[in-house]
């Protein structure tokens, strides 16, 4: 009965917004929005902020986006949100650190302003959600592997921090989908806490145990880049594939160099922009579906060019 954007019926693809609801209405003068982000220590969230600012420019509003200093300061993020509510924003774009840590803030803010849950963890009480499906992140990599390795192989998963929504969903989507071909065996699925160094040493251990590993699937790009170094130092570059998630710039660079195999880009800049657009539409009184799904795609060297447009 809890809300899950991955399965929610009331949804629309962000690319369909203009077609269904027309051009973006003009926002009244001096509308201010607040962004409560998850953290600024990962490039992904910085790109989302860039998207907010871009959207703000585009739609003539102002966005202040703030973030607590680390990803697991849940009360800190709640206090930050509470503080921002006091500043009287018309809309708050929030990306909770966990499913539940911002619930009281969302309830309080809901009385006076619009609250949109942007990405990642999902507050069950959120009325609006903009973002991609975390579950599908995992699905798209699994599908690629089903297609590429019908004869099977050994696969390892590098998970994010234990118990965190994005890590759970991505891993679940990947594992569930991959199970369609029993010959593709998941030989290990271990956490590296979103940390490059931990991913690096974990991957090295796994490569030693499974020297013929077919591929790594990593819950984010930072870890994937650490894994790439491990693969390189084991002389398995090109033989053991590495997939990341998020689509940060460094991942693109690495793909271009032929090191990282691919990343599931969920286009944070675009997402930020869409979030502002959705806020403007909602403030203008449009009745949008509950979930506005933003695009995601498995970006690899071969198809990179076609996604460049979403990245600026």
């Amino acid at each position: 009965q809890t809300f899950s954007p991955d399965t929610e019926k009331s949804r629309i693809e962000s690319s369909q917004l203009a077609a269904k609801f027309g051009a973006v209405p003009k926002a009244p003068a001096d509308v201010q929005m607040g962004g409560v982000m998850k953290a600024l220590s990962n490039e992904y969230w910085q790109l989302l902020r860039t998207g907010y600012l871009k959207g703000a420019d585009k739609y003539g509003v102002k966005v202040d986006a703030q973030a607590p200093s680390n990803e697991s300061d849940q009360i800190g993020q709640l206090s930050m949100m509470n503080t921002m509510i006091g500043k009287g924003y018309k809309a708050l774009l929030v990306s909770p650190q966990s499913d539940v840590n911002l619930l009281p803030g969302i309830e309080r803010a809901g009385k006076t302003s619009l609250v949109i849950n942007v990405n990642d963890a999902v507050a069950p009480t959120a009325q609006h959600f903009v973002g991609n499906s975390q579950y599908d992140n995992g699905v798209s990599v699994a599908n690629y592997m089903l297609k590429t390795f019908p004869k099977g192989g050994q696969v390892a998963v590098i998970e994010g921090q234990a118990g965190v929504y994005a890590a759970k969903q991505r891993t679940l989507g990947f594992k569930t989908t991959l199970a369609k071909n029993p010959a593709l065996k998941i030989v290990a699925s271990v956490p590296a806490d979103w940390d490059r160094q931990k991913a690096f040493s974990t991957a090295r251990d796994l490569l030693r145990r499974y020297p013929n590993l077919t591929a790594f699937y990593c819950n984010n790009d930072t870890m994937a880049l650490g894994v790439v170094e491990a693969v390189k130092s084991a002389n398995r570059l090109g033989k053991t594939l590495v997939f990341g998630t998020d689509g940060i710039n460094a991942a693109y660079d690495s793909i271009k160099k032929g090191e990282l195999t691919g990343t599931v880009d969920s286009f944070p800049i675009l997402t930020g922009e869409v979030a502002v657009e959705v806020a403007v539409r909602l403030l203008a009184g449009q009745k949008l579906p509950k979930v506005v799904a933003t695009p995601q795609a498995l970006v690899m060297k071969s198809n990179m060019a076609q996604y460049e447009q979403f990245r600026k």
Partner: protein
Amino acid sequence: MQKTQVSAPSNRTTIIERLREAGILAILLLGAVVFSFAVPSFFSVDNAINGIGLSAAINTIVAIGLTYVIITGGIDLSVGSTAALSAVIGADLMQRGLPALLAVLVALAVGALAGLINGLLVTRVQLAPFIVTLGTMTFYRGLALSYTNGQPILSLPDGFKRSLGGDVLGLPIPLIAALLLVAAFTLILRSSKTGQYILAIGGNAEAVRLSGINTNRYITLTYVISGVLAAFAALVLIAQLGAAEPILGSGWELSAIAASVVGGTSLAGGKGNVVGALLGALLLSMLQNVLTLLGVQAFYQLLATGLIIIGAMVIDRYTRGT
């Protein structure tokens, strides 16, 4: 022995000393006044309660327990994990239909048990507190995660949410609870045998033992207190959130230690006060609040936080004298 050359100056300095110990209070008030002028919307009841109050309240409750532990010369890194474990067990029981009060008691008992294990490992097995609670920090977190299979527990009973998460006369219950606990644990520390022994153990455990006092019992007690208060803080938090999750509480140990130490508790043991922990928690929360109100970006928030913590301690150092 005719004259009393010695006594006069050192006699009642304790009052002045206590005021001095509240040098941090001066910093807090100074900060509040400056910010009231400099930062729009800082000076408001709403901001004080919602922006500063809640996080300070929870940090304070945890810091009280840690202050006790630190005074004995120990440390408790496991508070966050203990909080998570008690919270998910309590929440789970409520969801399964146990009356909220009973579930709360079980959660507190879980906290006590977690603390007891820490305490016994420290006193009976004589392991270093740091290593014991580093181990149980990981272990209790693992328990909380496997208990819930990593899922949050949602929709807690309304009665529970209202009773621990609500208001009384406009004051949020967490804040009231924190203040009452500060008062109670100050009283215990200052005016009970137990409190005096805890202070004494931190000052010179060997001397206390030579006085025929069972030091192990009191040291263990501080860990139990720390566990129970962590559990209570977790209950207060989940009543606010309306949900409990197994990753709750990470990083609590550092904030609580910081609050204690900023408030004048010495990590070497033997010295400390609970009111200081409250002031320390308030200072840290106020800092965060102001930086958010000013719209300072995360990177610069870090710079500012670091500078202000050290700056406050330098001021404190020089106003305090020795």
